[in-house]
Structures are given as C-alpha cells and as structure tokens.
C-alpha cells in the first residue's frame, strides 16, 4: 500500500526517517512518502487539527508531540491491541502519557527530558560543587557571576532557561513546582492542585532569579536563545534538552569540552525532589486512513526497539525502550545518555491526559500565570489563586 507520514522533524531527523522508511519498504513492500512540516509545533498542531477535523484521508500516520495525543484522541486509531506485546519494554510513564482512558493513542518514537548544563571549568575555578537544590544553584550562580564580572567578563550571567510565555515555560515551571513537591498542576485524577504553598514557594524562588542571576531578557527566551547565550560562554548554568549537548560540543562553541550535564536541582520542603518534564515524540494512525492495517504496521515499526536503537545511535534521541540504556553500541555512540537514565527516573508528564482537549488552554493559562509572576506582575500566590479559578471554570 502507499502510505504517507507527516513529520515536523528537522533536517537530519528527516533523513533518518527516510532511511527507516526504506528499511520498512524493503521488509513490507509498503511505499511511504514523507510530508514534512514546519518545525514550529503550534503550526503543526493547528494544521493537524484542521486536517483531522475535515477527515483528511491524505495522511495516514502522524508524528505527534507527547501532549497532543489526548487532545486528538478521538481521531486516532486505538493501538493498544497491536502494541500489547511490546508495551512493557518501554518506560511506563511514556506509555501512560499516550493512553487516554483505555485507548493507546500513539506509540513512542523517542523521549526527551531536560538536564542542567553546567560549566565544569568555572565551577572548578571557583571551587564549587554541582548544585543539587535551587537555592544552591542560585547562590553558586550568583557568586561565580559576580566573581567573573569583577574579572572583566561583563557579559556573563548565572543561569539561563526558557522564560518566554510559551509551552517551554510550562515545562520549566512544572519542573520547579514538582521539584518543590507542589504536584503536577492537575493531577491524574483531574483535581486542580496548583494553588498550594509549595508551588508558591517554587515560583517565588524562580522569580528571584530574573534580573539577578538571569538576564531580564530571559522572559523572551526559548530554547535557542538560551543556547545562544550559553554557547557563547556567557552563562554558568543552563536548563535545556539533550539536543544542546552535541551543539555545545561543536568546534566553534566557546564552551566546548568545558561543560557537563546533571539532573535539574531539587526544591525545598516536603516532597522535594529533582524533576524533569517529559518530552518526546510518538506516532499515531489517523482514523481516516484508508490503509489502517499498513499504517499501524508502520507506526509499530518506527517505535520498535530496533528502530529506536538506530535512532539513538544516529540521532542521539533518547529511546523509550529501557534496555537500550545499557546497550553498548548506544552508549558508545552517545555516552551522555547514561546520564539521562537517572534524569528519567524523575520525569514528570504534563497534565495532558487528565485535561484532554483542553490541555493547550490549560497550559496557556499556566504559563501566563507564571510569566506574570516572573515579570513581577502580581505575586506568585495571587497569580496561582486566579489560575485555580480559571482552571476551575475551564474544566468544570
């Protein structure tokens, strides 16, 4: 059969996908064409919704972000049965994130979780340890920044993260709240938990960074802006996804060889722990596909352990198959992955499953509240109180 798969993946990612499809074609005889999409996830999401709403039969398989599955659940085929055999090879949290009610909406391709990037050289120079709590991070960052500035390195900042009002901020803030033991905004059972003391403390901590250890402009930063500052050697710490690892080791990067990664710091108080928002991409099969069987076959192929292994080796994407973290070939190709296994232990999903179709709006309300807090527009407590009411209205 002829299939088409839509993918917002990027340059080398597309090449890799093509090579996988070639293998698939060899094995099954199905011909698959790729429909590339812009890398902007919100552009992709809008398009997919429209296409699915109109029952577009031109696309068989969609590549979806973790948070989309529940929102588009109605229009995707249930993969539970087909996936049943291999389900327990994967991280349960990942499978859980793609399950709506009883339906497995998408099967994982790879996963993603952020880490704390730090400057080995600077920590050594100033005799500091890798911080394990946010308070430590703030103090260490502050001290090193001041010392460096005194030495004439005026451009340097302590910490950069993703502070712009967008999905990235939801990820960051979820990590702060969760690491302070403040829950997951909306719990799996649907209760709205965000308005609590721990969450307030977490946001207050974060707000204290802006303008001190982080530039004011961090409020407009996405992943790339943060990486830009970091890669020029102008930040001591950075929160970012694994993709930055290879780039920061590029030949023209000022930080090449001088950095390492660690789990994000933990908060303080009851239930404090390190936590990392779960990212990653999946494959889902359109309900309107005219070749559902073949399409399911394709989705399963792309999430299979073999495919994930090749992906891990060639693309340095984090597999969802647990056993691959011990695989020698994988570790040989991407040694840093070892570090991520620990990070995964603390992975926390965004509340897309309990909120279903409303996730995007929930996320938008959340990041707005957080952004307001960071930019000094209302206190954390006030903003979270209002947020609770808004969420309540939305989800009632």
């Amino acid at each position: 059969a002829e299939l088409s798969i839509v993918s917002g993946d990027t340059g080398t990612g597309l090449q890799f996908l093509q090579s996988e499809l070639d293998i698939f074609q060899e094995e099954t005889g199905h011909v698959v064409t790729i429909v590339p999409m812009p890398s902007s996830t919100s552009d992709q999401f809008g398009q997919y919704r429209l296409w699915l709403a109109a029952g577009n039969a031109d696309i068989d398989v969609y590549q979806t972000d973790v948070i989309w599955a529940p929102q588009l659940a109605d229009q995707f085929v249930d993969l539970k049965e087909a996936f049943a055999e291999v389900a327990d090879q994967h991280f349960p949290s990942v499978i859980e994130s793609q399950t709506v009610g009883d339906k497995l909406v998408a099967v994982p391709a790879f996963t993603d979780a952020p880490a704390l990037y730090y400057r080995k050289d600077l920590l050594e120079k100033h005799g500091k340890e890798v911080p394990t709590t946010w308070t430590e991070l703030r103090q260490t960052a502050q001290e090193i920044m001041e010392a460096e500035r005194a030495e004439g390195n005026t451009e340097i900042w302590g910490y950069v993260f993703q502070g712009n009002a967008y999905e990235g901020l939801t990820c960051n803030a979820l990590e702060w709240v969760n690491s302070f033991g403040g829950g997951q905004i909306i719990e799996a059972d649907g209760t709205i938990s965000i308005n609590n003391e721990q969450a307030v403390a977490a946001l207050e901590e974060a707000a204290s960074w802006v303008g001190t250890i982080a530039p004011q402009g961090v409020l407009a930063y996405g992943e790339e802006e943060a990486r830009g500052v970091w890669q020029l050697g102008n930040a001591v710490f950075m929160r970012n996804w694994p993709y930055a690892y290879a780039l920061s080791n590029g030949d023209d990067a000022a930080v090449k060889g001088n950095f390492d990664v660690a789990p994000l710091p933990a908060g303080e108080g009851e239930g404090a722990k390190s936590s990392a928002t779960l990212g990653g991409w999946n494959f889902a099969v359109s309900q309107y596909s005219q070749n559902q069987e073949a399409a399911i076959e394709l989705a399963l192929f792309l999430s299979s352990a073999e495919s994930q292994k090749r992906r891990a080796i060639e693309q340095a994407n984090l597999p969802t198959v647990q056993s691959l973290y011990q695989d020698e070939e994988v570790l040989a190709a991407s040694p840093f992955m070892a570090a991520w296994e620990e990070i995964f232990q603390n992975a926390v999903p965004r509340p897309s499953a309990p909120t279903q179709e409303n996730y995007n709006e929930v996320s938008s309300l959340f990041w707005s509240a957080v952004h307001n807090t960071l930019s000094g527009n209302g206190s954390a407590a006030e903003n979270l109180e209002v947020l609770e009411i808004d969420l309540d209205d939305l989800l009632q």
Partner: protein
Amino acid sequence: MTSEAIGAPTAAAQPRQKSELMQQRVRAARLFLLPMMIALAVVAGWPLARSIYFSFTDATLNDLYGAEWIGFGNYLQIRVLESGRTIYRGVLADPAWWNAVWNTVRFAFWSVLWETILGMIVALVLNAEFKGRGIVRAAILIPWAIPTIVSARMWSWMLNDQFGILNDLGMRLGLLNAPVAWTASPDTAMLAVLVVDIWKTTPFMALLILAGLQMIPKDIYEAAEIDGVHPVKQFFRITLPLVRPALMVAIIFRVLDALRIFDLIYVLTPNSAATKTMSVISQENLFQFNNFAEGSAQSTLLFLLIAIFTILYIWLGKVNFDGGDR
C-alpha cells in the same frame, strides 16, 4: 458626493427604447461581473457563511459536523448558578477578548497613523526631483517586498537582547544603558510590533500617496509661491487637501489590514498578552484550543468591527463611490 452609493436608483427615467449600444454595454457589464462574483462567492462567500454559522453552534474541531445550534451562547450567555449568583460567559464577557480588542484598535491606530505620516514624508521626498531618484525608489520598496514571515523573523533576530544588533547599536550610540528584551517585556512588545509593521508597510503607503501627489498640478505651487505661502503652510493648506482622495483609499486598505494583523504578531510575540490581537486570539481558539465555535464568534465580531469602521469611514470621510461613467 456619495450621490448614488448603496442601492440608490440611478437614472430615474430610463430611456424608453434601449438602444443596441446600451444593451451591449449592460450585457457586457453583466458578463464581466459574473466571473468575479462567482469567484468571490465561492472563495469567500461560503467560508464566511460557514464561519458565521459555526459561531452560533457548539462546534469543536473534533466534531465539526455534529455541531448543534446554540444561538448567541458563544457571544454572551447569562447563567444563574444554584447559589443564585448570576455569571456571564461568552466572548463578550471575556476580559481576554476585550484586551485583544483594545490591542487591535491600539495597534491599528498607531501603525496606520505613523505609516501615514512617514509614508507622506517618503512620498514627498520621492516626489522631489533629485539625482538617483530611481534607485531610492527601489530601495524604499524593499521592506515591502520581503515576505512577512521572513521579515518578522529577521526583526525578532535583530531585536534580541543578547545577539540583537539593535540593542548593540543603541548601546554604542549611548541611547540604551542595558540591552532591552524588546519583544519579551510587556512594556515594549507593542512598540516592537509597531516598529516592524511600520517599517514594513510604510512603502506601500508611500507608493499610493506618491501616485496621488503626482496628480496635483504643479502650477498651483507656483501660484502659492507668488502668494508668498510658506512651504509648511503649502503642505497643510494645499498638498494635504488635494492628496486626500488617494490618501483615503490607501488608509482604508491599510486599516483593514491592520485590524486583521496576524502573522507578524504570531511570529514576533506569539503569546504576549500585550500584543495579542483579535485575529491572534481567534486563531488560538480556533486551532490551538478546543473552542472552535468561540473562535468563530470572535472572527465574526472582528468582521463586524471592521465593517462598522469601514462604513463610518466611508460615510464620514465622504469617499467617492461614483464612477465617471457615460
């Protein structure tokens, strides 16, 4: 001036015997208008009708065809809770919507105002005789020729606080003490959007004004010179009144565009409440959130707002509809 605008009967007494010539012309007119009307009806009429229809239903993108009619619920709903409290729901009761309305109006006003002023200055410069006018004219048009999604990205790059050249320039020239995160800070986000939009569309305005300027007879300026009219006065008392018709048409198309501004803001400051306009908020509801019907209602309201503005403008501005027919 709008003597036979909207629907006024034209020639009261039609000639008793319509000649072949008149018949031929009317036939041709019908024939000529038909393809355009069909094209517009299909390409715009149906989608418009659908959008307006959806705004009165509970449609969601997951279930477009199962939409049910709910009347004005998306616009305004009055609900009395069990506790006896009355609450208002719907777009018209949504502060985010009113914020968007305010942003849109503010944006349209300032951008069109500055585009008009700057466009006028540029047009006056281009209207003067000087060496190299052709090249300058082409250079002026460059901002207008660059795709919006590209220029928006270009500017977001230039406005960046760390590697943006504008902050660097500002600091070098001593205009700024510290880099400003133009698109991030709610205080400057609107300013940033305005600057980019003005930069981009001033050439459009300048071009249309220039066309108007070229229609003004030169000898009037000589008469003014003999009357001893100061150049500044010449501009306000002569140029401006005479270029007005061209200006009015240019402004109307610009305002229509500005009120619908979407892509620039979507790329430059996608989620900033300080710049979220009606188009952006309705796009969000239509495609990002699960509020297709509400988004449709917002689009419809935007359409209404623009229509009201246009009618007011044409009425107050006495824009001439009438043709120079025979």
